[in-house]
């Protein structure tokens, strides 16, 4: 009887120790995951900054004109629909009365920015 009691006590003691070991292991794992999350968030923000810097007009224009030899056009050509006649070149000319003029282009979010609202919502409240 005494042996059984001692065995139970020893088992419980080992159990408690084991439980603490598992808790410690899990805690270390949690710490590592927290660190990874933090590092990933920081990396995302750094990459976001890098994209924004690469998209800066000064850099794009300097590259286009300085490295690629591109130049702004001297004039812009607009094509206006003239009904059955099809498209018509209206470069440097006023659009004909009654002609359909193209609607101003929309301003879609550039690639890389469209998903920011969703990502931001996922990041909200994270440690």
């Amino acid at each position, binding site marked *: 009887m005494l042996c059984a009691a001692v065995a139970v006590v020893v088992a419980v003691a080992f159990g408690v120790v084991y439980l*603490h070991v598992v*808790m*410690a292991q*899990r*805690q*270390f794992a*949690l*710490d590592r995951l927290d660190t990874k999350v*933090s590092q990933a*968030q*920081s990396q995302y*923000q*750094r990459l*976001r*900054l890098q994209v*924004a*810097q690469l*998209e*800066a*007009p*000064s850099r794009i*224009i*300097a590259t286009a004109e300085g490295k690629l030899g591109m130049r702004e*056009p001297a004039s*812009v050509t*607009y094509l*206006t629909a003239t009904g059955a006649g099809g498209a018509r070149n*209206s470069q*440097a*000319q*006023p*659009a*004909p*009365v009654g*002609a359909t*003029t*193209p609607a*101003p*282009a929309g*301003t879609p*979010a*550039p690639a890389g*920015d*469209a998903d*920011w*609202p*969703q990502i*931001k*919502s996922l*990041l*909200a*409240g*994270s*440690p």
Partner: protein
Amino acid sequence: MLVTVTFGFVAIATKLAFIQGVNAQHYLTVGQSEWTHAVALAGERGAILDRNGDELAMSVPQTTIYADPRQVSDPRAEATSLSPLLGVSEATLQNQLSADAGFVYLARTQPNAVAAAVAKLDLAGIYSLQEPKRFNPAGQLALPLLGTVGTAGAGLSGLEAKYNNVLSGKPGRLVEELDPQGGQIPGGLQQYQAPAAGQDVVLTLDEPLQYETEQTLAEALVAAHGKSGIALLMDSKTGDLLAAANLSMPDKAVPPTTSEPAAVPVSIPSTPVAGNPATGSNVGPQPVESPSASAFTEVYEPGSVNKLITISAALSQGVIVPSTHFVIPNSYDVAGTKFSDAENHPAENWSVTDILANSSNIGTIQIAQRLGKANLLRYLNAYGIGNRTDIAFPGESKGLLPTYWSGTSIATVPIGQGISVTAVQMLAAYNTIANGGEYIPPRLVEGTVDTQGKLHRLRAPAPHRVVTPTVANQMRTMLEQVVLHGTGTSASIPPYDVAGKTGTALVPKNGGYESGHYVASFVGYVPAEKPAITVMVQIYDTPDYGAAASAPAFATIARDALGALEVPPQPPLPPAGGVPLASTSSANPFGELSSGPLPAPVPPPPPVAPPATIPGRASPSPSTSSRT
């Protein structure tokens, strides 16, 4: 022996009872203070975005290196190791590491490479933490508008300050029990209150157009030898500011403070500014971003661009019609003061269109005399002069209206003297005509994006009508004549029709005016038939006139914007009914004047006395004088 042992056990038991019982709470508190750490978690500061969602300002976590000097046993050796990595002198670091404190910053917001190198040293008492740092991905683009953020993460100026509460979010808090190595004690206390990230602020600015506008203004500023300049680009229909450039020539007399970012010159292409053949070289000082958003915060006497308000008010009140003709003598007497036009001329019989196209001071004064003081002030107010815009930019001026109405005020105010305006006020006034007589409040902020990514648009201020569509149409025809045949020919952009007006005013100095130093401006909208954009260019302290200094830059900015916004030319509209076209073109292609004697600087008038007389020139105001 037994007694001694017993006494010892009793003493130990007594002490144990005191520790575990009587003073248990005290010791627990002391112990918790050692292993319990509370950390304030800063909410991530929101970004400032342009209207396309591109970041103009954003925060990125960086590593801050700090020390617990009580754990540093050899400050000198650690300072020697850290100095080359942190870029801080050994002496400074040694002082910090020897301080009688538990926490000192060694270097804040360092790049990751530096943080990794410091961690590799594994020095005692040296730690790191993450702190956000503010970046402007496009460099100093639009910096006067965006403003600055301090080391502590709070907005100090510009929109960063105005929207600081929105951007900064709310801090969180983390309380946890840590072991001596800094790891969390398994099963220990942990309380976490998440920080609330700040919201993003979405502007109406368009980053590429802002860049193009700044480049054009920089070229114009150098070409005109001006000291500072403003260029504004507005969406005519919505009042959204698509670009707002504020540039200055570097002033060596005023060195920047160490807390301000270094002023980086705006890069100017080698192409000369059209209409300014004297240009061609960009050697020498180049413009930098102004210290503040002067389009909102600084006032100037508008000069002849103010004639739009006078003439449209007179048309609205019915005291004139566009075909009304006036005899325009070479000089004109008002309350004992002689006024003249920019150039000598024989007596002319000019229509209202001719008066505006030739920027006649005398004709405008005669119109104002029919209009009267009360009506003039009422329309100035309706056009937004004397009131801050709804943008409420930090430090925004409401302009200056005359506090004393002298006998000559009815002559000076209508031609843009004796009053001062901000550039954005005058832009909004011209945009009123572009919108058929309805004042559209200017906007700089589109809305905010919350932490869930949802855009909350700011409520647009209500527009109000200033003049009828008929009057606006009449003004449109007359402003077109200014560009076709008058002082504003260098603002033309074929095949588009431009409606606009030049302005030139003398720069105030020591209570008088400085000969040969002008505030040159041009304001207008295009296409005149179906306005898409309204543009203003102002060059401060230039020897050139508005037509030469500002109108070519207007044309460049407008042409670039029309292309970027894909605005096609419009079929021409006939002149508004009853509006005669310009019958004279005394103005030369370069503007109001190409040469001519200038008035001597005028001493400042006494505060309540009528202004002094300027022979052959419009009467002065206490601050500046108008040229056209």
